[in-house]
């Protein structure tokens, strides 16, 4: 457990090493990156094995940092952080495996990649709002370079849009936090202290602060109508960056909402709850409907992320332990599934066919040319539809149950999203992989056969598939960490149903 902070240091160290080694050998940079993410993930899993979920936040490191402002270097973890750390390690490892073919400036690529990962680990471990914010920014900056340098379609536009949205969100968060810091007079950025100080805020102050902080984070979580950066960014990004973007970076936003905005300003949540919930539902439905009519394979997945993150935000807005635990589980589930979908689309299919247009893909008998990709995508698609047996199902079920307890209408509207998800997933599955199932004899395979699936791709896909099935069949593995954390005193003011 006490080794968890090393995930951050390892990632940053690995970034420097990869940069240095990459100048000479691309292969060395790859192996360094893989070793780094695997080692960090190993640390997380080792910590998870010995984790006692009953306690609240468990401090891992605590030292004064900027004493004059009361800023501390305080790292701590509970079941929620741990779930997301496991996700980060998993997504990072799979992402490296799916970036094995990066040939251009490999060292730099992995340096940015590992810096991003280090920042993400840092966010999930921070117990001090200022530190949280610093890591949050560290995670945002490398994204720009990853997309702008190694991206594809419209990469400058996508990268710039993503970063502007992210920074705008950050600015809101910062403004809200500074306001709380100044108004509270606690002279501390500790989340615990800020939460305690918030009790003295006037109602109006709470509403304002909550709006700033929650909205700032929710932008990164893809809250409708501030989601537009997500699909363009996802599409422009290189595969591994899309995987991380959808897999973990969007989770940073949701995590910020849950860890910072909600417990600090419970009155704010109570006031804004219906607005957030309906925006979340709108995102679920709208994201799904837009995904239904896309012609670019990657845009479909990009909009599906908006739809799935809507479930996370709905789970948070429902403001009870059941729904919030579903939301955290959905963060994990979506991280794995979206990562897998982007890997199939961006790496396995696009790098071989050099097209993402569904119209063109449907002319290829892809399920025959790339059976492994077809099977992987079908399984990932089923998981994404919320099919029982995969991790999305218990998550969405818990969110729906929790939403019923707060407001049945939200649950009813969100269930529509489940159906739309089925529709767009089936549509894209059909067009991309089985489009020409009937005309196979007539269609000759391309003159040069598509390159075979590499072992790295297979390993990455199987890793992610295994995760979604294991969690789908035994969600207790994660829920036993998440639920006690949500029932801790820290969340008591904001989440109903603290007692099991």
């Amino acid at each position, binding site marked *: 457990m006490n080794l968890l902070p090393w995930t951050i240091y390892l990632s940053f160290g690995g970034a420097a090493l990869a940069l240095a080694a990459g100048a000479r050998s691309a292969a060395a940079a790859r192996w360094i990156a893989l070793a780094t993410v695997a080692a960090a993930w190993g640390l997380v899993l080792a910590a998870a094995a010995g984790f006692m979920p009953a306690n609240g936040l468990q401090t891992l490191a605590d030292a004064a940092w900027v004493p004059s402002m009361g800023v501390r270097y305080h790292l701590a973890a509970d079941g929620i952080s741990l779930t997301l750390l496991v996700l980060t390690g998993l997504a990072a490892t799979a992402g490296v495996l799916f970036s094995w073919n990066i040939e251009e400036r490999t060292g730099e690529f992995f340096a940015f990649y590992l810096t991003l990962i280090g920042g993400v680990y840092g966010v999930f471990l921070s117990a001090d709002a200022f530190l949280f914010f610093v890591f949050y920014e560290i995670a945002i900056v490398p994204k720009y370079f990853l997309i702008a340098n190694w991206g594809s379609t419209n990469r400058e536009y996508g990268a710039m849009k993503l970063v502007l949205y992210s920074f705008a969100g950050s600015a809101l968060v910062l403004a809200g936090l500074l306001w709380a810091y100044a108004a509270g007079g606690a002279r501390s950025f500790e989340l615990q202290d800020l939460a305690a100080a918030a009790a003295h805020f006037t109602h109006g102050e709470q509403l304002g602060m909550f709006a700033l902080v929650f909205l700032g984070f929710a932008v990164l979580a893809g809250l409708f109508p501030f989601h537009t950066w997500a699909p363009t960014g996802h599409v422009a990004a290189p595969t591994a960056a899309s995987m991380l973007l959808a897999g973990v970076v969007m989770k940073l936003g949701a995590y910020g909402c849950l860890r910072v905005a909600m417990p600090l300003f419970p009155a704010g949540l109570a006031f804004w709850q219906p607005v957030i919930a309906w925006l979340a539902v709108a995102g679920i439905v709208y994201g799904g409907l837009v995904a239904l009519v896309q012609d670019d394979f990657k845009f479909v997945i990009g909009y599906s992320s908006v739809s799935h993150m809507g479930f996370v935000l709905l789970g948070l807005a429902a403001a009870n332990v059941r729904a919030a635990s579903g939301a955290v589980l959905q963060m994990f589930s979506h991280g794995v599934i979206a990562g897998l979908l982007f890997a199939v689309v961006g790496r396995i299919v696009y790098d071989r066919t050099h097209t993402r247009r569904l119209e063109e893909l449907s002319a290829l008998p892809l399920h025959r040319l790339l059976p492994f990709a077809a099977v992987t995508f079908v399984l990932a698609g089923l998981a994404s539809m919320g099919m029982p047996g995969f991790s999305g199902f218990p998550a969405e079920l818990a969110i*729906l149950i929790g939403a019923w307890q707060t407001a049945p209408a939200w649950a009813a509207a969100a269930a529509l999203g489940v159906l739309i998800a089925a529709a767009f997933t089936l549509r894209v599955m059909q067009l991309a992989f089985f489009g020409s199932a009937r005309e196979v004899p007539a269609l000759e395979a391309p003159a040069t056969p598509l390159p075979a699936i590499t072992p790295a791709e297979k390993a990455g896909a199987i890793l992610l598939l295994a995760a979604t099935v294991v969690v789908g069949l035994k969600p207790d593995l994660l829920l036993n960490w998440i*639920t006690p954390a949500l029932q801790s005193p820290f969340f008591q003011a904001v989440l109903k149903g603290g007692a099991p």
Partner: protein
Amino acid sequence: MSGVPWLSLIIFVPWAGALLLAVRPRLGGRAVRLLALLCSLSTLAFGLALLGSFDRAATGYQFVEDHAWIAALNVHYHLGLDGLSLILVLLTGLVAPSALLASWRQERDPRLFQLLFLFLQGSALGVFLALDFFHWFIFWELSLVPAFFLIKLWGGGAATRAAYQFIIYTMAGSACMLLAFAAIFAATGTLDFTQLAGLAASGALGVKLAALGGFWPEAVFLGVFLGLAVKVPLFPFHTWLPPAYAEAPTGVSMFLTGVMSKMGVYGFFRILWPLFPAPLHAASGGLLWLALGGVVLGAFAAMRQSDLKRMVAYSSINHVSYCLLALFAVAAATGRSGLTSEPAAAALSGALLQMFNHGLSASALFFCVGVLESRGGGRRGLAEFGGVRSAAPVFAGLCGIAMFSSLGLPGLNGFVGEFLIFRGVFGLAPWAAATGCLGLLVTAIFLLTFYQRVFHGPRAGAGAGEFCDLSGLETATLAPAIALMFLLGVLPQLLIGLYNPLVTFWAGHLTLP
């Protein structure tokens, strides 16, 4: 005997077979087929083995397996078997191997076909045996996936559209049902069917759901209802069925109609009725009309078809609607003063028997149409055959028996089920029984037309050229079902005895909470 998880074995042996096929890509076609057939037959073997130790007098669940699974959602791995489940397991055990035999000559990617089929079979069995919604819903939804691909990849010309229609309709129903069960869990904290039925019987479930306020308690009932009604399908939610059944390859149509349509009916008996006795009673007036719609309009629609496969598909709607007619009549009469349990017991007993009978006869009819189709080079129009009897007397005989079983000729199995249903429904809702008789009449008309046009008269159309009689394999596929039609026609108590105490118990406890 005890200690062995029999029910898990029933479900997971077909799945294990599917897994084995998945990881052994180099098995030859023959080995694949034999392995699949063996795994598929295991259901029948286990079902017959359980008959030995099945306590026929008991009304509760037997061979129960109950293990904690997901603490956070109070989900248990809960399996149990009663008379209702038992006959459906036996039915699956009979229909599935026949369907595989019917697909024996399937040459396009036999491994994937058999793999998906075994997966489908295991999922259907899971639906009949799982007693916790979470657990049950996994099987319910997972059964859609192999069915979708079996229709889409091996079906006829319009299969893709039919497969999508099938899965979107059913998933829409499932989404409603999922939402409803989320509400039920939010209100009660459990998803276990037996516990929920207990709560419903005491009226506690209704009270807890009423706390949702507004129209939401009704919406919960409606959600579960829709999920099941689409699957059965109940008129007017049936429009996905004719294309799906007609486009699916023969073996898959046999399984869809024989087993999968029973999943929905089973859900009505296992979930909707026990959990919502009062709302079902309140809605039963309208529901009876819907069931009658299926009975009468299904039959009329079948009469209007020129495609034989679509004709059999519509007749399927007609036949499963009888089961629901019986259930809704019982629900309508629940709580009526002066009600004796006798007509209710007859109606329910008939409904269960009809589920089994329809599984046998409809899958046999689909097989017969498949034979015509394969001989006729893909043609299966009513007007495209003639005089087949003189070319293929054995086929004509067996197909005729299946038809007469389907239209309810006394002496064959179909008669007993329909007779019991009508006897019961006459006692409970006479007008419904009277209207429903129209369906019986029209069924006789279209099936006899089918028989006359195709088998009698001068040889014509696709029947005019080389039309060989049934091969040994085809006879073996059809013969068990035909033998059972005779056996159950004469000795229906062989089957009724398995569930009679259960039905008597239900009929004796018809009270509203």
